[in-house]
């Protein structure tokens, strides 16, 4: 069961992960270490809260819960941040993506739907499809990597304690 003790560390690290993910320079610097690091920090925060409780035992499932929670929370916040960034900027990530793919795969057929999304962003600076896609994309990736991070944290804590 997801308890408050798990939700708060996941909220802090998930939110931080979402904030850091939209800062370009930091993103280039830390590359693939973001989400696992958030998972590790999240689990350590949880561990610090509950380690003195009677009968507490490190369980793999706790790491799994925290990892998934971080994925959901960071997905939620990052999709909002990215949407806001698109609204206030002149950038069109869908168009940039089309250009990049065409650079390496010039013969590829670009579906009409994609051009429509790109047009919608140019005109309204918002696309519900894009926001939803960002949410699911971030949720899937961060859930996997934050879970790996929190699992690594469990393993290292066990090593330390033994």
């Amino acid at each position, binding site marked *: 069961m997801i308890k408050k003790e798990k939700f708060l560390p996941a909220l802090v690290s998930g939110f931080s992960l979402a904030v850091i993910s939209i800062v370009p320079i930091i993103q280039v610097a830390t590359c*693939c270490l*973001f989400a696992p690091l958030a998972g590790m920090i999240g689990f350590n925060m949880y561990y610090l809260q509950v380690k003195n409780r009677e009968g507490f035992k490190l369980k*793999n499932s706790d790491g799994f819960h925290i990892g998934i929670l971080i994925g959901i929370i960071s997905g939620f916040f990052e999709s909002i941040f990215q949407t806001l960034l698109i609204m206030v900027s002149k950038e069109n990530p869908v168009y940039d993506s089309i250009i990049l793919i065409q650079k*390496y*795969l010039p013969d590829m057929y670009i579906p009409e739907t994609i051009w429509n999304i790109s047009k919608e962003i140019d005109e309204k600076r918002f696309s519900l499809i894009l926001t939803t896609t960002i949410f699911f994309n971030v949720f899937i*990736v961060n859930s996997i990597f934050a879970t*790996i991070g929190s699992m690594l944290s469990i*393993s290292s804590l066990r090593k330390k304690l033994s």
Partner: protein
Amino acid sequence: MKKSTKINLIYLLITISSFIFLSLTFSFVFIKDFYMISFLKNFYGQICHQIEKRSFFVFSKPMLICSRCSGIFGGFLTLFLFVTFFSSLRKWLDKLNYKIILLFSLPLLIDWILNFIFKVESTNFVRFLTGFLFSIIPVYFINNLILQQERDD
């Protein structure tokens, strides 16, 4: 199901997953569907900066992850493959002190500090190599997790 079979299956599953994960970084070479390629590009874009200059090229097409990430994930797959097929390696690896294992992150950290703080550009091969050494750390801890699960069962 026998306990040892279950554990071997977990190792095999992780190896296959990391093989698929690494194979898909070559998507520009073999995928011809726009939706698929843009999904994968965004997927890997979430975990890597995907700077072309810092990525390896296969058939003049960039990999979807940078050379450092290629080292980390490639190293993970290679080492996990060994651990999967040579079970004696699992216990040997688990007996090593975790502080010694953490030292394997030093080359990556030094390379990163030189690159990012002191602006000394290293080559993609160096980035790959330091990433490869770093990959011992996740393999060590994941191996420990699985063995711990086996002991708990």
